[in-house]
């Protein structure tokens, strides 16, 4: 079991802290600029809000790599009094995902939502605000501030879904909104109890007070917070809002929703159970229960993905399934295989994000080009949109977990961890999940390569051409998902350095 994080390291050089602040505030100010009328402010906001992020993250990554995790006290007020930002390898990884996936999806969106005009005026401020909100969420170390960030993510993500404008999209947005608000309230109620039990809102200081608080209070508070997060993270059986919402959103929005937005809740579950809750309090049973839900998601999502008739719905149900892996690692937190399990889980977070974003962008191109994303309409795709098909297939390789993709590495590590820790039921679930993934990915590929049935085929006239750059965006993400399988050693080392429970007091 993870030991609580001890007093953290001091803040690094001012340059690092400025980079951390900029990661949150550049997109935020970019959103403000994009609100203003005209093309120039919008373009300025997008470019200045998104383009510098990788550069800033290089600085942050190097600092964390060399000196370990760091705090930044906002306003200069120390922790129980003020709010602080916390950056460690996990947070750095999430920030990179936001920068890369958010950036590439933004490039894809540039064509469908031209900045400064028409729908672009509605789209870009929300998009930039969403990027800023996710960065803020991954860095925040304060339970109440995280509530505000969660609400900001929700209230920017849902209008972006609704921008699709279809009846299905609006209906899905409405349901997502109601359930997300319920989830936030459950979370907030838990936080209210935790504050009164421990006297602090700091994610990493609550652990000190939890040991002394009445067990009933701790159990109720943790249960409420976890329930809220499970609902936000669309973990089986609370996933009911996800498939339609993700499938009906505009392409780049679907990509970011599946790759990043649902992960925010899983990320907070990790933070809560692996960092905040001290080993003396965390019940093995709770972590096992979470893993059982993960197993349920993996199997149920996999089966339903197999039953879908529309490409985007297959991909959306695949998200429900793939999120399951992230919870499966939790019961291994006390075993000797934990570092491997942690590497596997985190790598899954990364590779699924890249692959799923690639799939959604490719699906958006296909939908746009063919006017339909029904599997029965996809035949001869290799002639009509070979590059989109290629992106879809490469991302599918990673989702299935075939070598040499990032997904393969993640699943391999997970298998090794379950093998070593002797959690045989997890092993069985992992294998079943991979088989299901292979089945639904092959089903898509089979549908695209089919060339019989000329009567059913849509006339070629309906095929519209896609800007080459949009195809390139999907390809780039798919290549990254594949490349995550190569040269993974330094990345894995970096992840391992951040394994929860491995830091000792400075």
């Amino acid at each position, binding site marked *: 079991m993870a030991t609580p994080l001890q007093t953290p390291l001091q803040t690094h050089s001012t340059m690092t802290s400025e980079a951390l602040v900029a990661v949150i505030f550049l997109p935020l100010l970019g959103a403000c600029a994009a609100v203003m009328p005209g093309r120039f402010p919008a373009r300025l906001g997008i470019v200045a809000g998104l383009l510098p992020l990788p550069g800033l993250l290089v600085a942050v990554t190097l600092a964390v790599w060399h000196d370990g995790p760091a705090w930044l006290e906002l306003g200069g007020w120390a922790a129980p009094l003020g709010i602080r930002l916390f950056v460690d390898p996990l947070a750095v990884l999430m920030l990179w995902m936001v920068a890369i996936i958010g950036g590439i999806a933004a490039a894809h969106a540039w064509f469908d939502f031209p900045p400064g005009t028409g729908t672009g005026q509605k789209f870009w401020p929300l998009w930039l605000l969403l990027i800023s909100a996710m960065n803020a969420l991954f860095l925040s170390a304060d339970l109440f501030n995280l509530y505000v960030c969660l609400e900001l993510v929700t*209230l920017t993500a849902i209008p972006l879904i609704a921008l699709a404008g279809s*009846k*299905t999209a*609006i209906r899905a947005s409405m*349901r997502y909104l109601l359930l997300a608000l319920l989830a936030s*309230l459950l979370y*907030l109620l838990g936080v*209210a109890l935790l504050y009164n039990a421990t006297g602090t809102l700091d994610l990493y200081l609550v652990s000190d007070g939890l040991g002394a608080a009445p067990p009933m209070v701790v159990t109720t508070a943790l249960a409420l917070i976890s329930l809220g997060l499970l609902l936000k993270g669309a973990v089986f059986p609370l996933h*009911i809002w996800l498939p339609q919402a993700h499938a009906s959103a505009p392409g780049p929005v679907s990509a970011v929703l599946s790759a990043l937005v649902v992960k925010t809740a899983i990320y907070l579950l990790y933070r809560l159970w692996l960092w905040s809750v001290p080993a003396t309090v965390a019940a093995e049973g709770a972590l096992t229960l979470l893993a059982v839900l993960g197993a349920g998601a993996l199997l149920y999502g996999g089966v339903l993905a197999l039953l879908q*008739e529309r490409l985007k719905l297959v991909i959306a149900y695949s998200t429900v399934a793939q999120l399951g892996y992230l919870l499966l690692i939790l019961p291994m937190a006390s075993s000797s295989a934990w570092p491997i399990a942690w590497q596997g889980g985190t790598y899954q977070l990364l590779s699924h994000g890249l692959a799923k974003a690639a799939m959604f962008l490719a699906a958006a191109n296909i939908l746009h080009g063919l006017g339909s994303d029904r599997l029965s309409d996809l035949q001869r795709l290799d002639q009509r949109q070979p590059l989109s098909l290629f992106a879809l297939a490469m991302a599918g390789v990673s989702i299935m977990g075939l070598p040499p993709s990032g997904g393969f590495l993640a699943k391999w590590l997970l298998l090794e961890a379950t093998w070593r820790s002797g959690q045989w039921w997890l092993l069985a679930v992992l294998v079943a999940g991979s088989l299901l993934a292979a089945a639904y990915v092959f089903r898509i590929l089979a549908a695209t390569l089919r060339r019989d049935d000329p009567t059913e085929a849509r006339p070629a006239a309906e095929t519209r051409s896609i800007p080459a750059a949009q195809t390139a965006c999907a390809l780039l993400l798919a290549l990254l998902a594949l490349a995550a399988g190569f040269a993974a050693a330094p990345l894995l080392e970096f992840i391992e350095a951040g394994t929860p429970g491995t830091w000792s007091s400075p």
Partner: protein
Amino acid sequence: MNPTAVIYVLTAAAIFGIGLYGLLVSRQILRQLLTINLMGGGIFLLLITLGGGAEGPPDPVPQAMVLTGIVIAVSATAFALALLLRWQELSGSSEVDGDAVTDAVTDALDDDE
């Protein structure tokens, strides 16, 4: 805990529960929004009462949390109402169709685009 605090803690829990019940059983979206606001009110009341509001000025941190929470609640409600208007425009109804559980099953096989 003094009796006043006990009264308000129980009130807070009751409002939260009533709101939750209302949210889960209502089919009118507008009413569901009312119930979400009720639940929020319950949490706020709990925060302030536990923060010592019954005896004297309550803990300022929960007060700030509640103030922030009230503004977030009105923001979320306002957006939800705008979305509801749009939903009614498209569907001609201001209700959720069917219930959440059976919907999830039909959605699995449904594509009404």
